[in-house]
Every structure is written in C-alpha cells, then in structure tokens.
C-alpha cells in the first residue's frame, strides 16, 4: 500500500498516522539539519526539502486536495506539526505555502491559482511578503507605497522593508496604496510581482543573528499587469487577513520556547550545574511559564478543532509563547556566562555546545513579528473591555 495517498492516510488511526509521518521523516530528513531554532534552511536547502516533501506526499497538510495539498483535518495538521517539532527540524519559512496559498485559494482567479499553486507546492517559486514599510510596521494600514493605474498595468513606486528572503525569492506579494480613502484600511490593493521586474532593487539588511534574510526592496516605476491583482482593487486589507487552518495558530505556538528550553537544559547539563539549578527560582519560573503557555496553546488548539476559536485567542498564545521564548533564552545567556558573547558553539570539540548568543538574538524579534506584543495586548483589550474612546 502506498501510505501517502490521501485515502490511505484517512484510513489510519491518529496514532498510525503519526507513526507513518515519523517514520517517513526519520528516513528522509537529513540528520545534520536537526538543529531547531538555531538552523534556518537556506534557499537551496529549503527548495530541496520542499521537493522531498512533495515527492513523499507530505507537502501542504492544510491545503485542500483539489488544490494539490493533503487536505487534512485541523487535528491531523496539528499532529503533522507536532511530529516535525519532535523530530527537531530546522526552521523553514516556506512563505509561499504558509502565507500566500490560503490567500490565492480564497481570492485568486482560476488563472492565478493554476499558475502559482503548483509552483509553490513544487518549490519552483520562492515567495516573499512585501508588507512593512519604513513608516508602517505594526500600524501596517498606514502604508504609503503607491500603485498608479496606467491602462492594463499598475506602476509601482516606493519602498518595502523588513522583507524576509527578498534576496533569494523569485516573487513578491505586496500591499500597495491604489487610492486615498477616509479609512486608511481602504484603498489598499494586494498585488503579485516577479522580483526580476525592471525597476526593483533589493538590498539585504544583516540582522542580530547574523542572517541576511531581511531586505529593503525599492520600486522605481515598476510595471505590474492588472491581472496580478488578487481580490478587488482597494480590498487588499481584507485579502491579506486570510490565513488557513493551523497556520493561523502556528506563529503563536510555544514550539520555539520548547526548543529553547531544550537548549537551556543542554547547557545546564554541559556545565554540570543541575544540582544547584533544580531549585533556582528563575528556572522554576521559566518552567512554569512554559507549562502555562503550552496548556493555553493546547486549549486554543482544541477550540480551533471544534470551531470555537475566540477573537483574541491568537493574540493570547502569541504573547505567552513569545515571552516564554525570550525569558528562556535570557536565562540561557545569563547561565552561559562569557560563552554567550562568543560567536559559534562555545567549544568546537564539545558536541553538546551550541551558539548561545545566537539563540538569544533569534528570540529578540519574537515579540515583534506577527504583531508586536503591545499590539496583541490592544487586540485582547478590545475584546475584553471594548474599543477605547477616540482622542
């Protein structure tokens, strides 16, 4: 039996399904890449991995079968996610699948879907997300990059920033301003473009963890065909809010915090300080926060599976998970003493050693991306208290 055909998978119990994916992963995932958090697959590695998943029939758990995905229930998607985490896989952004595919499914034209979905699934196209601008971060709706209609094209002028992977991507999806309306959320349009279009300049920005995945992207009279608009012109804000299934919860999952905690325990054992750490109040509080974040996340996933998500659920888990992640890496940096200031693993001959400073650095933006902690608190406050009076 070919276990990875959709029908064969459906017939399995949850347990057997979990085992099937675990076995497949153990067989196909490169051992050297089992470095969660610290390792991020580069463009070439990611493309190889995406192709391998695709060939094995494990690509796109949440995407409907008609669109080439596995069409799994939310509960099964969560199992897939859990198996990957247990296997300690490296970070993969896979922006095309995670962020664009759900949008194309809901708002894309048949032509757009037929053109882009297969190439996302095969890893042939690599997408980046052009949302943030120098003057529009958490307050994304203040974006100003212009797209002027000119016949059957839009002409783009302006700048995007903090665009992850723009240097290695082939395509970009964008929010641009096509008109100025009373509400700033109106007059925004969602566009698709290829990054080799003349007039686009990409400039990488090195980040604290030493990666170059951030970029500035400049647009100077860049022509984009009107057929590349997704959804209605001026309705881009609604379009951009679409997320599919488990992906909506993923940024809020405590998985980074749990991996970081694994590194913390590794450090504690490598330094031989467990006997004094086991009653250390900072460690106990970090554990308590992680246990709580996991319990809340599980409760939220259960609500999602039963279709009973509450408005602020994502914000809640995002705050708890990102703050637990940071606190754990802070304690790790502290316990590592001078080791934390070294680049690379603190002892090249010790297999237990790892890059403590990088772990700490990677945790810094966790309370910023996917909506800053302060913005998430505003969202929760709205549902808890109601909107604040306008000043």
């Amino acid at each position: 039996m070919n276990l990875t055909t959709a029908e064969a998978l459906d017939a399995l119990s949850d347990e057997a399904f979990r085992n099937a994916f675990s076995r497949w992963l153990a067989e196909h995932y490169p051992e050297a890449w089992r470095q969660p958090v610290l390792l991020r697959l580069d463009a070439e590695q990611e493309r190889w991995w995406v192709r391998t998943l695709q060939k094995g029939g494990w690509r796109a758990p949440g995407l409907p079968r008609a669109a080439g995905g596995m069409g799994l229930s939310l509960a099964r998607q969560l199992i897939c996610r859990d198996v990957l985490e247990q296997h300690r896989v490296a970070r993969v952004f896979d922006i095309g699948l995670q962020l664009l595919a759900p949008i194309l499914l809901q708002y894309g034209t048949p032509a757009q879907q037929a053109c882009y979905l297969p190439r996302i699934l095969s890893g042939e196209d690599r997408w980046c997300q052009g949302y943030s601008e120098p003057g529009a971060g958490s307050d994304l709706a203040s974006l100003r990059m212009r797209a002027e209609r000119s016949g059957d094209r839009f002409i783009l002028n302006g700048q995007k920033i903090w665009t992850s992977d723009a240097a290695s991507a082939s395509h970009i999806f964008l929010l641009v301003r096509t008109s100025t309306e009373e509400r700033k959320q109106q007059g925004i349009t969602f566009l698709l473009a290829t990054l080799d279009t003349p007039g686009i300049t990409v400039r990488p920005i090195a980040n604290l963890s030493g990666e170059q995945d951030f970029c500035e992207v400049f647009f100077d009279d860049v022509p984009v065909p009107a057929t590349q608009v997704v959804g209605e012109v001026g309705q881009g804000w609604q379009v951009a809010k679409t997320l599919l299934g488990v992906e909506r919860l993923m940024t809020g999952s405590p998985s980074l915090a749990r991996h970081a905690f694994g590194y913390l325990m590794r450090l504690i054992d490598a330094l031989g300080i467990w006997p004094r750490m086991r009653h250390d109040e900072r460690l106990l509080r970090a554990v308590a926060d992680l246990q709580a974040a996991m319990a809340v996340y599980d409760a939220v996933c259960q609500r999602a599976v039963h279709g009973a998500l509450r408005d602020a659920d994502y914000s809640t888990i995002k705050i708890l998970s990102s703050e637990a992640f940071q606190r754990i890496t802070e304690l790790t940096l502290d316990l590592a003493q001078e080791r934390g200031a070294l680049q690379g693993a603190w002892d090249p001959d010790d297999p237990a050693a790892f890059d403590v400073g990088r772990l700490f650095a990677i945790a810094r933006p966790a309370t910023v991306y996917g909506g800053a902690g302060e913005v998430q608190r505003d969202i929760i406050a709205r549902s808890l208290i109601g909107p604040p009076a306008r000043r």
Partner: protein
Amino acid sequence: MSAKLLQDSARAFLRDAHDMERLRQRAGHVHGWDQTLWRQMAEMGWIGMRLPEPLGGAGLDLAMAAELGSVLGEAMVPDPFAACAVMPSAVLEAAWACSPSDRLVDLGRQLASADAVLALAWQGGYGALDPDWSQVRITSAGAGLRLRGRRMLVEAGATHWLVPASADGCACVVLVNAPRAGVLRQRASDGSVLVTAELDEAVLSDGILLRGDAATAAVPAVLAEGRLVQAATLCGLAQRLLEVSISHARDRRQFGEALADLQVVRHRLVDMHLQVEQANALWRQALAAVDARGDGAARAGSALHAASARAADAALSVARSAAQIHGAMGYAQDSPAGMGMVLAMRMVAAVGPADSHRRRAATRTSLEALAR
C-alpha cells in the same frame, strides 16, 4: 447533569444566598463561618456531590466539583468547599472502597446533609505539602484508643477531624471529634477561623477509617483533589476581580477620561486576563491528566503542582492589580477589590506555597518532557 447546568444553577442560587454583606459579617462569627449557607449548599446537593451514591452522595466526577468551585470563587464565597466537602468526601470514598460499613453510610449522610462538618486535619507544619504521619500517634489508653500530636490550620467550623496518624508505624486515617481543649484559634485574613491543636482525643468507635497502604495512597490523592478544586476556585475569584476591575475602569473618570481608555490601564487588565487564562488552562489540563490516568489525583503529579502554583500566583497578582486599579478604594476592606484581596490571601494559603508547588512541578522527568 452538565457542567453548564450546574454552573448556571449555582450562579442563580448564589445571587440570592450570598453577597458582600454576608462576607463582611463573617468576621463577627465565632467560627468565622455562618452555617446557614453551608446548610443551603447541602440542600443544593453540593456538599455530597462527590460522595458515592451508596454513601448518600451524587457520585459526580471531580470535573463537576472543580466547575462548582470556580463559580464559588467567582461569587466570592469563602465557605470551605474544597476542605470540608470535596476532601472529606474523597476520604469516605476511599474508606468505602476498602471496606464498606454502616458507619460510613452514616458518616456520609451526616456530611452530605451538613449535620456534621468534616475536615482533613493533615498539616503538621507551615509550608508542608504532605502530611507527616508520625507527628500524630495512636496509643491505647485503658479500654479505648487516644490520638496525640499536632495538627494545624483546620477550619473552625469542622465538627469532626479526619486525621492522618500512625499506630506503631502503620499509617491510619482516624476520625475524632474536633478538639475543644488545648486549641489555638486564629482568625485568617478573610475573617474565617483556623484551629491548631495539640491533640489528645479519644478515637471514636470504628474511627480508624483507613489503614496501611490504603491510607498512604488515599491521603495524597485526597489532597490533590482538594488542591485541584481550590485552584479552580482561585481562578473563579481571579476572574471576578478582573471583571470588577474592568467595570471600575469603565466607570471611573479622571483627567476627563475613563480609566478604561488609558492604554496603560488596558494593558494591565490584559495582563490580569492572561494570568487567569493560564491558571484556567492549567487546572483543566491537570484534571484531564487525572482522568486520563484514571487512578487518582495524586498521579497527576507535575500538572497538578503547576496548576496549584499558577492559580495561587494568578489570584494574588490579579488581586494586587485590582487593588491598584481601584486606587484608594482598593485599600478599603469593604470594597470588592479589598474583599477579593483578603479572600485571595486566605484561599492561596489553602492551596499550599506556590514555590513548593513550582519545585514539585519541575521534576527532571517533567522538564525532559517539556524540552524539545
């Protein structure tokens, strides 16, 4: 009966039966405890809800008791549901499982009807999470048996004590009348009264309810059930204090605007809410762990300690924030925020010290399960 139904009827009942005034008057009672409500709770079937049916109870599961505890916390009911309903019921149930007797049926009836009030008198020292069995000993005295040793912080309203003790090195749980002599009575923050005693009491006839392994297995499980319900109760209290704070922030205007329009106040309220969310998720998870294991709350181990620690932290931190948001009113004992604070102090003490729970929650095994 569904949990929802139980909660709805409990809320409706408590709206009439309990209010701030009753809470205020509590301090004037000799036991710190007004028996009227306890009797009404018995009539509602709450005191015996966990008792097996042959003992005159409703045989409802722990989840229902926890849901009810949460409503009692929300309504700021100080009466000791976990200590004097849930825990003694669990003792009688364990005793019944070992050897059914008419004596147990009679005790069950008295407990469920509130004719007697039972409490597990287990604590021997401040900060303990487990009973020290050898601290109280059973000795022969003439024709009968006597119980001698120290037990502390027992609800003054209890008419009978269930005491973990040892008889020649064998663990027992023993029923005695609540001691009258040689007792220290101390009023707690919320007006309730707690009793510490150097026991020298006659063991009642058929008073050894549990013996040996059955006793050493039952008591930690009984404490765990009590703590779970207490954790749920603390969550209910914290939720109420959050709601009270939100409505105060909406009503109270300073510098020309409502407190609820100030971002710093809004974020503070959100952080209170996050504490409650975490505490709620943890006690529910601990409950699931108990159910999944199917062999008693003691086995839930790490999850239960995590839930107890967080419930204690959440209740106190929410109470502190509620007091701050209420301004000077938060320092007035008569305000809901002030009442909530004194209740939280007392109820947190009943769940056990948070740092000890945190330590128990962080066993090496549980940490390895957390790490990935």
